[in-house]
């Protein structure tokens, strides 16, 4: 603040011009701006970030649905295509949520423009929340897209729609957080690609997108039950059929625990400035 006495003091040298003062600012605006920047970033290249994954989802459905429709009945009274649709929706949603936060962050780190987000008065929590929320939006947009074009092949029932929403949001958030961690840790694109190809892809593929884990040998059933992705997809599917491999409450508890743990790791990395403010 300018000291008022300074202006009135006749003995002092000619009063300097009023010092520039920064305008008043709201911190929530910082978060909202970062969120809308992150959303606009993927939306500007939506052909690549939304249309492409939707097409991939449809291809999976056409190939697997066509081949397996008459041979597999996973849940009683549920056809394979109908079973597959929620799995594909969730897989696309999860992969794209991860891709959004991780690729945005690593691009900004490598090109150096992350500095524009690090200089302003944005807190670690706001930074975290903006990246994760943008990842959730991208995941949900892609999920809705995949659903919109696949639903016509075998419209699934909506037995418990609340669970659909809960698992879609929590799953996207968890993958958004994992993407944030991967983006913070990775220093090069190939490190991030390794994370994506060797962790995220296997975990989503081996989570029961294409099959019910009940059909697996006991050992692989056990392994599947250690995979948090299994619970996300299983819980999401429960929302459609009210049938699942695990109780939706158990799935909810596990997904929430995983989200809490991943968030704690990400926030502590941000608080330490790990690889970002070094």
């Amino acid at each position: 603040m300018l000291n008022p006495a300074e202006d009135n003091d006749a003995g002092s040298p000619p009063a300097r011009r009023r010092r520039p003062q920064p305008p008043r600012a709201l911190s929530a605006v910082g978060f909202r701006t970062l969120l809308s920047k992150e959303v606009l970033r993927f939306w500007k290249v939506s052909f690549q970030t939304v249309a492409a994954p939707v097409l991939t989802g449809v291809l999976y459905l056409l190939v697997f649905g066509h081949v397996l429709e008459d041979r597999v009945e996973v849940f009683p009274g549920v056809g394979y295509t109908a079973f597959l649709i929620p799995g594909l929706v969730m897989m696309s949603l999860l992969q794209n949520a991860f891709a959004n936060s991780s690729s945005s962050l690593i691009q900004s780190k490598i090109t150096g423009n992350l500095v524009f987000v690090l200089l302003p008065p944005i807190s670690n929590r706001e930074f975290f929340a903006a990246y994760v929320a943008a990842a959730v939006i991208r995941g949900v947009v892609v999920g809705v897209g995949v659903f919109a074009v696949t639903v016509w092949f075998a419209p699934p029932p909506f037995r418990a729609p609340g669970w659909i929403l809960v698992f879609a949001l929590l799953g996207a958030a968890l993958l958004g957080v994992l993407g944030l961690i991967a983006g913070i840790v990775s220093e090069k694109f190939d490190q991030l690609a390794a994370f994506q190809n060797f962790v995220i892809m296997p975990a989503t593929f081996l989570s029961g997108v294409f099959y019910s884990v009940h059909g697996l040998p006991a050992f692989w059933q056990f392994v599947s039950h250690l995979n948090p992705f299994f619970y996300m997809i299983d819980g999401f599917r429960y929302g459609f059929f009210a049938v699942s491999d695990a109780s939706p409450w158990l799935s909810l508890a596990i997904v929430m625990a995983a989200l809490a743990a991943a968030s704690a790791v990400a926030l502590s990395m941000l608080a330490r400035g790990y690889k970002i403010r070094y």
Partner: protein
Amino acid sequence: MSDIAAIEVTGLVKRYPRVAALDGVSLRVEQGEFFGLLGPNGAGKTTLISIVAGLARASAGRALVMGHDVVADYREARRRIGVVPQELVFDPFFTVRETLRFQSGYFGLRRNDEWIDEVMAHLDLTAKADANMRTLSGGMKRRVLVAQALVHRPPVIVLDEPTAGVDVELRQGLWSFIRRLNREGHTIVLTTHYLEEAQQLCGRIGMLKGGRLIALDRTQALLQRLADVQVRLRLRGELPAALRERAVEQGDGRVRVRVAAAAEVESVLAACRTAGATIEEVEVGHADLEDVFMQLMAGDQRKIAA
């Protein structure tokens, strides 16, 4: 002069695994100053600026911007400082206007278009407002970086090597704009490799070497420490041994010889002639910042110490 410094750092240390980038730097930049931070590559200039701007964490010591601690009170500190980074970075997804709007928003300012337009006009960016960042020339990108540092009207503006690789015209335009901001009350902190620029612009200068502050004084005072007259010669033949001690050879026969007074110039020329060297060019002048800088960096600190 206000009690609150624009920037105040105390005992700042930054250790990286293999090297200490800053080794105990204390420094105060007063409000309204035009301050130059000089030093060779790797001296710690950018590290110092990064800590003040919150981009890096100090290993020890503290930094304040307008009295606000850059760690404990980072929101207030960051709102008061605008930084033009050294690297020519940009976000290829957006236009100039989008870039500036986002930057305003990050600082919590929602409706800032009037000021954004004004900043763009001052930096000759108006015609490029809706051009994608990717399509801009290097000089234009540099201007956008300056504009980004100003969107939140910070009282303290830090420019890290702002004119590296910038053409003469833009450099002149940039400096007249920065000078104006300084006249309007903004504190300016500048790092540059162009010592001539620092000499012309900065009221006070700090010199860093190996993470330590080795000089801190008003620019005029720094120059006066080398009040000697300089004889700049181009010789064909050997420099006489008697002159070597106070001469700096610059290659290609060019030599700078320090003399205490103008009257001594003649004896220098005579010595050269006696030694059989042909004087091809001669010029007499005062030391400039580059001389001070070279001496300090060569470790000749006693000569310069007040």
